[in-house]
């Protein structure tokens, strides 16, 4: 499916990512006992991000998942690990495409998107690495729901 982030156009196999996540959602979310904290949705919801900032936030979030989340999500379950790595591969290709947009200045970052992403990193760094990575992985549907809402 082709997603439009302003001048930046990125094709993404969301259905494939979603089905991979659906297969591991219950298992991964059960490993996250912290109900009172979210990486992506509180205190600021992704759904409040302005249209202009979508590309920049998406670019940073894909970098975040590839660089800080997937690699810290090893489990004792090989089935779960395989699903995680296939999601990670899908993210990697999208990360590259968004990176090209970013380098070609088609993915501008305003102050608000920087603040928003800073908050996400603060939420992430408020936990130990493994808990933060597992919680972020368990919130993948929050990211996908938001991305798919893009016009």
């Amino acid at each position, binding site marked *: *499916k082709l997603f439009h982030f302003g001048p930046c156009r990125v094709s993404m196999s*969301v*259905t494939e990512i*979603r*089905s991979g996540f*659906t297969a591991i959602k*219950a298992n991964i*979310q*059960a490993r996250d006992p912290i*109900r*009172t*904290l*979210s990486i992506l*949705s*509180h205190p600021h*919801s992704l*759904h409040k991000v302005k249209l202009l900032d979508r590309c920049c936030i998406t670019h940073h979030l894909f970098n975040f998942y590839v660089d800080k989340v997937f690699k810290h999500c090893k489990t004792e379950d090989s089935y779960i690990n395989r699903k995680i790595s296939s999601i990670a591969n899908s993210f990697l290709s999208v990360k590259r495409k968004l990176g090209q947009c970013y380098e070609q200045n088609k993915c501008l970052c305003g102050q608000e998107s920087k603040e928003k992403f800073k908050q996400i990193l603060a939420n992430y760094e408020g936990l130990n690495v493994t808990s933060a990575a597992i919680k972020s992985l*368990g919130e993948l*549907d*929050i990211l*996908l*729901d938001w991305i*798919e809402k893009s016009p």
Partner: protein
Amino acid sequence: SGELYCSLPNPRNVHFESVNMKNVLHWSAPEGTGDGVLYKVKYSVYGVGKWIRKPECRNINRTWCDLSNETSDYEEQYYASVKAFLNGMCSDWTETTRFNPLTDTKIDPPMVSVSSTEKSISIFLTAPEKWKRSPEEESVSLLQVYPGLQYNVSVLNKKTKKRWWFSVSNNTLVVPWLEPGTTYCVSAQIHVPTPLLHSGFSKEYCIATLKDK
């Protein structure tokens, strides 16, 4: 809350049952308990720090609680929890898994209406509405919630038993080049590609094409 130690077995299978985003919490009574068990319910928005009690589901003896109102923002995700009481004893709180109204709801079949000419039938499809608090509240079609929503339509020639399948995004389908004076039966299903959701098929609506003049 004053309960020192809870030895009653926990409520079982605490889960949301959701249709068109009418989100109802369900559970089973604790094992080995007969009549007389009472329950209370609380819920929380994922990522927000507090549990909120549901007054209408306090000291109830039924094993369900409608939380549609409290979980109507489908940009949020939720947990709910139930506690049981019997003869002065209590159970621990028992929680649901994380509930995402957008991906965890079931969708009803579409409404279907048909009309015919001599050689064609027209099929009109309507997606169900999202649950709403009251009849006066503005209706929201699930088409607005799921912009990628499609309809799978089956058309059966009752005489030849030949069946066609169509997948359409808009809500009108005209099937041309049919036989005059023949009965055709139509059934339709909703399909959302992502997040992957589909309804059951609607019941069949049959109509005859007009006879040749």
